[in-house]
């Protein structure tokens, strides 16, 4: 290693700082108005084109850091990797000191490379997608803000720091979903995303406080870590888990773990807090690709990986809870995705379903498999969303797949990359999705047969609905009215680049091609963890699981093509046969209606009661005080004769009277 990569490796704190600077420069530079010397008109201090340049430079520098971090990781054998933690004091109150810093280990290298790489491509794509939008520069400013928050989250050394950046990604997500806030749907969607995340984050915060409460003394008396180690540092969680499992009752451990899991539940769109994610598709498509498919929603899985020691000490309570939440999410997402006609909504439910796979893997203890799926999914799902953006752009903002069809001829690159993404997410032909999904399925087979069966069926369903979107969009005849434009080269380049990892990254990191396997570096091994899987165990089961899942996926593809390409079967007949399931899917399992009911029946009723109390009791008391004062005043006004002598006499005799009273009371 030379000094160059040493610099990038040793100064990881710069990584979140670049986009922050870009964000501040763009926001301030665009806000200051100056007079143009040539035309005399008022213009912003910073020209519009500087916004993408600044943002992409910031992300590019972050990517350089990520590359040197990858070099650092692979330069050493996986047994010898020592995490590097650096901390600075953030705030201190009494003997409680919170720190902020950068943690360099296999997990953060993984996320760092995904976030910077995908971000950079999507920012380039954004230049094509948003070129004609009024808020072009502002959009790049927000993108930089998001990158700052996300990279701070990825590099977080401790739970409080992660929480802070966790909230920051929520804010940037809110800003970007509501970017076209003049559309009522977008404004409502951003609010919904924010509020639903609030529910989860509240649980998360309580979980952090619980954890801190039960372990504060332990942290302050702990000597096994570096003295600079932060409070609630992820590095100390393994030892902390050992301490906690000996001192706390199992129900409390489970409660703490589930409370912390509430954060990922909202952020990673787990059932029943998933309702914000499909609505978030109101945001511009690059945002859907970057935040609501590849990076931010995966942050929940990343958090579970970070606090995994705390979760793994509750094998009877927290882990099954997480597993089944993930499984339900995967199934519900896949079922809803089948009936969606909006291309972005279908992809959103597919994202939700895949996140369910990852979370279920985490709950099963298949730590490596969950993170591996996060990693591969980021590439192909970002690509799929970007493809949908390219389609929407070409069809003049049409998102309904019933108004598309036959677009392969007009949009060959988009169509081809979309097909690659579809194959990858279906887990066919040893593309990247195959490796990661089958690792999850193998873990499920080892742990829990019911979960395995459900997830395998869901994988088949995934192939079905993904090929359905492909056939409806790109095959058959064009059904829409809009004039289809040609592809934009700025937008197809990121698609082509993303297609490469979508196909090969799974194979490359599977351990079969000479490069160290993904799981060699990213493993979690706690001695007493009951759900611990050595990676080789998964490999041993691979052939069997892989063949079954490919077969199931092929059945899904076959059915899908029979319905939507060859039109052997009519969808109407099936809709009638499966009427209850179909209406369940069409109505998104009525979750939005249930929440509406809860809000209307519970919250609104309660607030009406409160309003009545306020109106009649509180206001009544206030008005009573006012009325009594007024009445008393009216009584006394009669004494106000306007005659000076009367006043003076009253004062004089009053003084004498008071004096006499005093004499009588205290002297007599």
């Amino acid at each position: 290693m030379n000094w160059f990569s040493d610099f990038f490796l040793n100064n990881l704190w710069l990584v979140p700082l670049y986009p922050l600077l870009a964000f501040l420069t763009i926001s301030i530079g665009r806000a200051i108005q100056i007079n143009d010397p040539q035309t005399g008109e008022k213009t912003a201090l910073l020209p519009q084109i500087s916004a993408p340049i600044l943002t992409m430079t910031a992300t590019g520098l972050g990517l350089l850091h990520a590359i040197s971090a990858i070099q650092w990781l692979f330069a050493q054998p996986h047994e010898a990797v020592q995490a590097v933690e650096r901390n600075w004091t953030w705030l201190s109150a009494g003997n409680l000191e919170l720190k902020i810093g950068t943690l360099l280990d296999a997990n953060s290298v993984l996320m760092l490379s995904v976030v910077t790489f995908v971000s950079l491509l999507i920012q380039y794509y954004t230049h094509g997608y948003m070129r004609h939008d009024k808020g072009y520069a502002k959009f790049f400013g927000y993108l930089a803000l998001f990158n700052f928050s996300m990279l701070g989250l990825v590099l977080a050394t401790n739970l409080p720091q992660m929480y802070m950046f966790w909230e920051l990604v929520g804010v940037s997500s809110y800003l970007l979903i509501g970017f076209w806030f003049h559309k009522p749907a977008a404004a409502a969607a951003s609010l919904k995303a924010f509020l639903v995340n609030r529910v989860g984050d509240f649980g998360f915060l309580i979980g952090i406080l619980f954890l801190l409460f039960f372990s504060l003394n332990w942290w302050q008396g702990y000597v096994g870590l570096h003295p600079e180690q932060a409070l609630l540092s992820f590095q100390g969680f393994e030892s902390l888990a050992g301490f906690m499992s000996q001192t706390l009752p199992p129900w409390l451990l489970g409660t703490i773990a589930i409370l912390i899991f509430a954060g990922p539940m909202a952020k990673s769109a787990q059932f029943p807090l998933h309702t914000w994610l499909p609505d978030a598709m109101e945001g511009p498509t690059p945002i859907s690709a970057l935040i609501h498919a590849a990076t931010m929603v995966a942050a929940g899985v990343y958090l579970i990986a970070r606090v995994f020691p705390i979760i793994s000490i509750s094998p009877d309570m927290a882990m099954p809870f997480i597993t089944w939440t993930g499984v339900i999410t995967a199934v519900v997402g896949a079922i809803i995705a089948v009936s969606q006609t909006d291309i972005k909504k279908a992809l959103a439910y597919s994202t939700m379903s895949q996140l369910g796979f990852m979370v279920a893997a985490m709950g099963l203890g298949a730590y490596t498999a969950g993170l591996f799926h996060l990693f591969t999914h980021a590439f192909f799902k970002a690509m799929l969303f970007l493809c949908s953006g390219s389609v929407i752009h070409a069809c003049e903002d049409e998102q309904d797949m019933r108004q598309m069809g036959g677009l392969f001829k007009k949009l060959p690159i988009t169509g081809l990359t979309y097909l690659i993404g579809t194959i990858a997410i279906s887990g066919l032909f040893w593309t990247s999705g195959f490796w990661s999904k089958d690792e999850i399925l193998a873990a499920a087979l080892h742990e829990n047969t019911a979960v395995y069966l459900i997830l395998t069926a869901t994988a088949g369903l995934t192939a079905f609905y993904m090929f359905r979107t492909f056939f409806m969009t790109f095959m058959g005849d064009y059904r829409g009215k809009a004039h289809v434009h040609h592809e934009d080269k700025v937008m197809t380049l990121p698609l082509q680049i993303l297609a490469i990892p979508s196909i090969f990254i799974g194979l490359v990191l599977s351990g079969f091609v000479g490069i160290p396997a993904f799981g060699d570096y990213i493993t979690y091994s706690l001695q007493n963890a009951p759900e611990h899987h050595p990676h080789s165990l998964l490999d041993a089961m691979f052939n069997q699981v892989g063949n079954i899942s490919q077969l199931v996926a092929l059945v899904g593809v076959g059915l899908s093509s029979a319905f939507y390409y060859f039109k052997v079967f009519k969808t109407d007949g099936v809709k009638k046969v499966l009427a209850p399931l179909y209406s369940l899917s069409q109505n998104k399992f009525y979750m939005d209606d249930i929440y509406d009911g809860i809000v209307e029946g519970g919250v609104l009723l309660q607030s009406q009661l409160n309003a009545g109390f306020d109106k009649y009791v509180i206001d009544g008391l206030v008005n009573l005080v006012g009325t009594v004062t007024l009445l008393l005043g009216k009584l006394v006004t009669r004494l106000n004769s306007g005659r000076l002598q009367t006043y003076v006499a009253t004062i004089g005799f009053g003084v004498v009277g008071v004096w006499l009273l005093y004499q009588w009371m205290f002297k007599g």
Partner: protein
Amino acid sequence: MMMSAEVAEVAAVAGLTVHHYLGVATILFGLGFAGVVSSRHLIRTLMCVELMLNAVNLVFVAINNHVNPSDLSGQVFAIFILTISAAEAAVGLAIVLALFKNTASVDVEDFSRLKW
């Protein structure tokens, strides 16, 4: 000029105690008060107020001589009160003059409009 201590000595020789001074001051104050309450002429009211103020001055000086004759703070207070009362009389007379110009009356009974 006699010092305040000498005044006290002379007064003592004459058989005057602080009670005499206070008695005179009380009578003065009472007369002034009675005048303020009973008179209808504004000028007379003002004069009665002066009488009350002078009663207070007398009390200040008498108490000062009785309690601590070497200290002159009571006298100083009296001087201040005289100054203030001079200013007050000037302002009061100006108001009475203005009232008289507007209403051709100095009767207190005529100025009772400020009521409910």
